């Protein structure tokens, strides 16, 4: 048993999600990611349960652990009450803590994700918000949403949202004291530390790749090599 495995096994998601795997493949059979990526959750769970640190370290540095969509469909079906999705969450957590996530293309995406989502949470009180949802980043949201974003006050106002105003209601302005509480929670629970860590490792990787932070942000958000797919079958 190795140090990385020990650290992993302290994660409650490993305690809940990894009992004993018998390699039956029920998880992979219905995994959306296994269909569309070079990905097999069964093999990941099996690798973790082998407790070999070198193999686990390779996993933490690989693209493989970033393919899962955390839909948790695997949890429903496993005959041994494992949760491959939970194991993945623990692996990702450790990959970030160790700074290994910058070693893979998909892992590096933690940078734009962390910035966007936590920026929203800490500034607006919600993970997703029309104020920061730009049409140019989301052309798939369609002409109708381009229209909504251009007319936020009008459209949300007509639909009875309390858009950016005080008091309860959809899309209200969250009082500053509540946002301060969220920040305090981040500070106390390691959330802030996590943001700083992602910033630090990503900055170093950007430098290594010869990019500014802004270029790296855009690159990690948009770049997709074709090595992730597998359509030979």
């Amino acid at each position, binding site marked *: 048993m190795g140090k990385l495995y020990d650290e992993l096994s302290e994660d409650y998601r490993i305690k809940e999600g990894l009992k004993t795997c018998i390699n*039956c493949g029920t998880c992979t059979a219905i995994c959306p990611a296994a269909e569309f990526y070079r990905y097999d959750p069964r093999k990941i769970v099996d690798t973790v349960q082998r407790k070999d640190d070198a193999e686990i370290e390779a996993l933490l540095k690989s693209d493989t652990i970033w393919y899962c969509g955390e839909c948790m469909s695997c949890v429903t079906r496993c005959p041994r009450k494992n949760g491959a999705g939970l194991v993945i969450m623990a692996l990702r957590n450790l990959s970030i803590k160790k700074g290994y996530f910058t070693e893979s293309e998909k892992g590096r995406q933690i940078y734009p994700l962390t910035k966007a989502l936590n920026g929203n949470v800490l500034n607006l009180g919600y993970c997703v918000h029309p104020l920061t949802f730009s049409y140019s980043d989301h052309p798939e949201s369609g002409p109708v949403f381009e229209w909504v974003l251009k007319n936020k006050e009008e459209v949300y106002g007509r639909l009875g949202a309390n858009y950016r105003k005080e008091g309860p209601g959809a899309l209200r302005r969250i009082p500053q004291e509540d946002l301060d509480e969220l920040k305090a929670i981040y500070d106390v629970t390691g959330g802030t530390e996590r943001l700083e860590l992602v910033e630090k490792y990503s900055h170093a990787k950007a430098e290594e790749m010869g990019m500014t932070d802004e270029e790296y942000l855009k690159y990690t958000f948009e770049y997709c090599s074709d090595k992730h797919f597998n359509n030979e079958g």
Partner: protein
Amino acid sequence: MKDNIVIVGGGIAGMEAARQLLLLGYKPILVEKSDHLGGHVADWHCLFPDMTPAQQVVKDLTEQIKDANIFLETEVSFINKMKMGYNVMFSNGVNVICKAILLATGFDLFDASKKEEYGYGIYDQVMTNKDLEHWFNTGDDKRITGKDIKKIGFVHCVGSRDVKAGNQQCSKVCCITAIKQAMEMKERFPDAEVYCFYMDLRLFGKKYEDFYIKAQMESGVHFIRGRVSEVSENLQGQVIVKTEDTLSGKPAKITLDLLVLMAGIVCNREAVQTASMVQVPIDSDGFLKSRDNILNIIETDSKGVFLAGTATGAKTIPETAAEARAVALAIHNYLVSQQ
């Protein structure tokens, strides 16, 4: 006049034990809750490894125990412990004082509808191993009769080796049953492709491996290593099966005209109640608890109470019969020791 012995259960274990006890000069009382002897085997068509007709086995045993006191459609209502034995009350009103009780209560076939994702009782073309044997026997099943069957699947481990389904034990006989039934279907539908979806092939018994090779060589059964994860139905009423082909490491799907679920062996739920009347507890595997699981599997910690057959776990017919013979001797020795 020899001592009374009550045998609960008229399946293979109960019948074979009764036969041996008759040979030893006893006149056992056998109670069976259903209206016929033979237990699950009576519902089967042919038996591995030599395709012996199941009806013949039941018939032979039935003929040889006709001197026993047999009560069909009868259950044990209650059992009182007495100083020298037990007072057993049956549901037909008969009351028996006996020195030995044999619990040959057998198993329940796992209720396949509990594996909800396999759609038994929901999707039209899904059946169980037992349903298929019924079709072999009667030719009557709307899932097969008159249908153009081109692709057939067999799902191993349905309600076996499954913590979520409440039974983590291997049911032992399903692998070989699946292969047997796959070959029987291939005989009846020579043009059909037949698939077995398995996790491990546990072919431990006499000539089982021969069956496996025969299924590969002669019947051309396709063996796919992967537990079936989900079954659904398409517009044509066929079933779509999803599994991982774990040897290829790829999710796989296939459309089938018929899907047969190998429902496993779980402890007879009513037997648990009967066993509790004579203080026989349940072992950690969900089956009745033996004194120990090495040399005394047919004995219990309750004096004069014995076990045989699948009451203590999944077994084949020969294993059950062997246990039944052993238990007859054990009961005889016990009764002699009590005199």
